């Protein structure tokens, strides 16, 4: 990869990362949300791979392959399995904040991310740090999706967006964390999604719905 095209590819992958995060807020259907999550996993793996190829680090490329398998394959597949069969269960019908407002909020969060990360970027201006605002924006948008969606699966998707953003921030700001930490985080994430999947299935079996607002009172 030549040095001229390296920032272009990095910008492109970061653009896909942000676009998929916005897309998750845009859609009502849960199935396209999960597909977008898979696409975001590919973009995240691409960012790490591009960094690895640019810095000639085999380790980063291997991490990218692992990330790709986990974020674009395993996690969306697990979330997919938590998706119910009934039509009422596969839609985010009435989010706490409506879709138009959440899209505008996402735009505002993106600008916030740009403002907040400006000092960080100024510390060491490089193509990798210049896309740092995008990663922080994905963190904020993921958090927003996590708190404003009612369906359990939509919240899992929001949580995974948040974590994709955190991983992207780590790789862009510091060219990655030690491999053992990355492995630990990935296993944690896998376990969390597995637990949430079991929880969603149980909720649906007990209440007939995965709307988390139904969980109001305590039972023996």
């Amino acid at each position, binding site marked *: 990869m030549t040095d*001229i*095209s390296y920032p*272009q590819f990095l*910008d*492109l992958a*970061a*653009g896909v990362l*942000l*676009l998929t995060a*916005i897309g998750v807020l*845009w859609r009502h259907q849960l199935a396209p949300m999960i597909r977008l999550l898979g696409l975001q996993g590919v973009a995240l793996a691409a960012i790490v791979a591009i960094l690895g190829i640019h810095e000639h680090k085999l380790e980063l490329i291997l991490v990218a392959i692992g990330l790709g398998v986990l974020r674009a394959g395993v996690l969306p597949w697990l979330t997919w399995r938590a998706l119910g069969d009934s039509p009422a269960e596969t839609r985010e019908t009435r989010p706490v904040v*409506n*879709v*138009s407002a959440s*899209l*505008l909020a*996402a*735009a505002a969060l*993106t*600008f916030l991310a*740009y403002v907040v990360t400006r000092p960080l970027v100024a510390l060491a201006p490089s193509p990798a740090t*210049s*896309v740092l*605002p*995008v990663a922080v924006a994905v963190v904020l948008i993921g958090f927003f999706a996590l708190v404003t969606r009612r369906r359990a699966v939509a919240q899992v998707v929001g949580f995974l967006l948040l974590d994709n953003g955190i991983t992207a921030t780590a790789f862009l700001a510091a060219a990655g964390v030690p491999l053992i930490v990355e492995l630990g985080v990935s296993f944690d994430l896998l376990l969390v999604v597995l637990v949430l999947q079991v929880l969603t299935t149980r909720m649906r079996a007990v209440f007939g719905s995965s709307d988390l607002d139904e969980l109001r009172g305590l039972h023996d």
Partner: protein
Amino acid sequence: MNGPALAAIAAQLVVTVAGAPLLVGLMRQVRARLEGRAGAGVGQPWRDLRKLLRRPPVTPRGTGWAFRLAPLLLVGSALVLAAIAPLVTVASPLDALADLFAVVGLLALGTVTLALAALDTGTAFGGMGASREITVLALVEPTILVAGFALSARVGSTNLAAIVTATLHDPLRVASPASLLAAAALLIVVIAETGRLPVDNPDTHLELTMIHEAMILEYAGSDLALVELAAAMRLTIMLGLLASLFVPWGIAGASLVALPLAVVIFVAKVAALGAGLGAVEVFVAKLRLFRVPELLAGSFVLALLAVASSFFLA
């Protein structure tokens, strides 16, 4: 004004006027084939226009100048757009006029005249259609402008020809996030502005959800032909602008030699875009009217992010 420039402007006008109904016919034909119908053929819109043009216009009782002037203004603004927009060449002398604001203004002028004409008829459908069209217009225009700013920020000019030329000199710019986001935003906006699915269904009459068809319900004869032609031309021009801004290769410069080839490439690009849109339309249903602002808010956010990334990532 010299020979090559005049030839370029003439080529743009002829291609847009002659090709616009053919593009509509192509889109309908693609749709018909994918739905398993034989289809009426690519030339059907031209046959319809010929039939309508031979008939005298009928104006409803009580309508005034707004109703009578609208078809002429609509076609006029579309013709001006076809002449100044950088569709086939970037070296035409009228390119200085092809400013982003001028193009958006001309588009809005056409829409507003048609909405006024629809109000002038005083019918329920006309008023409904006009109010919906203006709602869509109010959401569409800012998006076009903001997406345009994203493209013009790096060039330092809001002139469309300058933007196209800059993209020609630096092809990698098309793959930048700013450009991709702006392309997505503009595509949605073009679909909304030209009244295609999922915002408006161009194939139905007398349906409560129609937008464009509700406004032109009272037109007949040659007036209807003009309105239909102008709508087709606007579609062609907007798809052509989309192609020129994001896939500018093959557009002609100052020389006359490259002009025929540029015309062929332009026709191919717009036909490919139109056929793609027609194919996608088979698979999408019309959105509820109250969901349309959601779609357009999404495209506005994309445009806003395009501007942001063109400033911050540069």
